[in-house]
């Protein structure tokens, strides 16, 4: 059984009299440990799919099962609990809490879990070490560079050992050099820690760090993994 099972997922938006359907009966499986890059032109529904999987938006139809939990049926509060325990979210812009230090920002998701202070401290230190920011623990977001802020955001996403991490164009607001460093970091986290990731990106080069590449087009998912992985631009078995 796949870690993520998405079936018949449909999401519509109304814009005046017009109805836009960015996701139309989408099916998708993501195996544990996969690093899935989701590409597509603007407005094709990449972020919508990611937000539905993250449980911060509601589908009009279909089901999303993550590690045995059918999240479309959860109430708002239960969904929040599920996110706290199972989801790491990396934002495009850093979205750190400005009044908290790097350490406190990373610790934030752990405050929602039944962990002792010592356990929280240990986990935060490990997460900050994983992103190479042990020397910036007491810095506030305004005292960090864009790349460092994004690293803190990544540490915050991984610190609770979530079942899946979603990243919404994590390098979209960074310069080329910093973007490359973040790509390397994400790839390493997937390889070394075995973290399952779904990353939305416009950039083919960024997508190449994934172990699997999908393309969203007119509400459908198309498998777009480069040939080195065996397939390219062929409809995925689970995609319609």
């Amino acid at each position, binding site marked *: 059984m796949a870690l993520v099972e998405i079936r018949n997922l449909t999401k519509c938006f109304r814009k005046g009299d017009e109805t836009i359907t960015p996701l139309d009966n989408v099916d998708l499986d993501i195996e544990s440990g996969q690093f899935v890059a989701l590409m597509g032109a603007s407005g094709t529904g990449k972020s919508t799919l990611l937000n539905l999987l993250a449980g911060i938006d509601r589908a009009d139809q279909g089901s999303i099962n993550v590690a045995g939990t059918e999240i479309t049926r959860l109430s708002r509060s239960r969904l929040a609990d599920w996110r706290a325990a199972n989801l790491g979210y990396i934002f495009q812009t850093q979205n750190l*809490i400005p009044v908290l230090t790097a350490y*406190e920002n990373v610790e934030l998701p752990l*405050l929602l879990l039944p962990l002792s202070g010592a356990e929280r401290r240990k986990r935060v230190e490990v997460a900050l070490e994983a992103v190479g920011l042990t020397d910036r623990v007491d810095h506030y977001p305004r005292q960090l560079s864009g790349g460092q802020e994004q690293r803190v955001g990544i540490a915050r996403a991984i610190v609770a050992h979530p079942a899946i991490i979603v990243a919404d164009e994590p390098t979209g607001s960074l310069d080329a050099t910093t973007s490359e460093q973040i790509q390397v970091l994400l790839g390493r986290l997937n390889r070394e820690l075995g973290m399952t990731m779904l990353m939305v990106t416009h950039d083919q080069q960024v997508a190449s760090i994934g172990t699997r590449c999908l393309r969203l087009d007119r509400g459908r998912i198309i498998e777009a993994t480069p040939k080195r992985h065996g397939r390219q631009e062929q409809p995925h078995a689970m995609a319609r």
Partner: protein
Amino acid sequence: MFRFTPYVIKSLWRRRARTLLTVSGAAVALLVFCFVGSVQEGLRRLTEDEHAQRTLIVFQENRFCPTSSRLPHDYADRIRTVPGVADVVPVLVWTNNCRAILDAIVFNGLPVGKLRSARDLQLTSGDWTEFAGRHDAALVGRTVARRHNLAMGEQFSIGEISVRVAGVFESAVPAEENLIYTDLPFLQYTPGMNAAGLVTQHEVHLTDDAEPEAVARAIDQALKAGPVATTTRRKGAFQASVLSDLVDLIGFAHWLGYACVALVLSLVATTTVMSVQDRIREHAVLQTLGLRPARIFRLVIAESLLMCVFGGVLGTIAALALIASGGMAIGAEGVTIAFRPSWQLGAMGIAVSLAVGVLAAIVPAFQAARTQIVSALRNA
């Protein structure tokens, strides 16, 4: 439960100018609220406590100012014969001003023996022997002594009255501490008083089983044939009647107290709304990280509560300190209302701060908790 306390405090500190202005606004409003409350409490003590309900005042009919009420001293003997009367204390009152004034000097002349039995006075300096032994001796209430810097052994004069301080007293009845007591004959025979054989009022103490209104009627009936007609009322009702102008003013002032509460409510609500609107995205991020809407609600309430309670406690403490150190009293017609700090007043100030802190934040907290995460992340 308190894991998010640093976040709440840092969020307030981040906008410290706004927070400090709100806190100081709440402090000033609560200071005024407590001050108004202390005046009301003083009036309530004066008119509603047990002593005020179980003691009668016999006053000259249709007179309100102590300078115009003149009753024969010997009415005391006739009053004493009325069933239900336990004791009668003749009192001659002199005041430097019958109008509402913040610094009224009120002399009460009582027979020395009656003064000890009818009043619960504790001398903080001087002694009763000195008071009983000197014709012009006066016992000065602690508040008056502090306000006019009077000490044991000092001689002072007000108008035609010249006395020597034989002691300073404190009393369980705060209004008493605004009075100066002398021996009754001394005041009656003071030049200019023209009060030989006269008193301003008779204070009637009742037996335990007496019904005050019935005894009051019986006294007026018994004195009906005398040279001066009387009106007898409970001490509380008498004092409320004497202070009627002030009672109206204090009644108006209590609206001022409510206005202060409304002001804090509006001030804190505005600050909280602004804070929530500034942080729509931040609240969406917190929800994405897994904070339940109810927790977001509580965080917003906590911020408002902290500002309000901090300001409220500061204002309440400042008000209580001001009242305690100022020794303020307002008086008219020889009756004074003492402003006194009390635990009840402090508790009321803090309770109002708590209630306002919660009320002011309910709507913005609800808005923050209902934030749609995706649109907030996209648009804010």
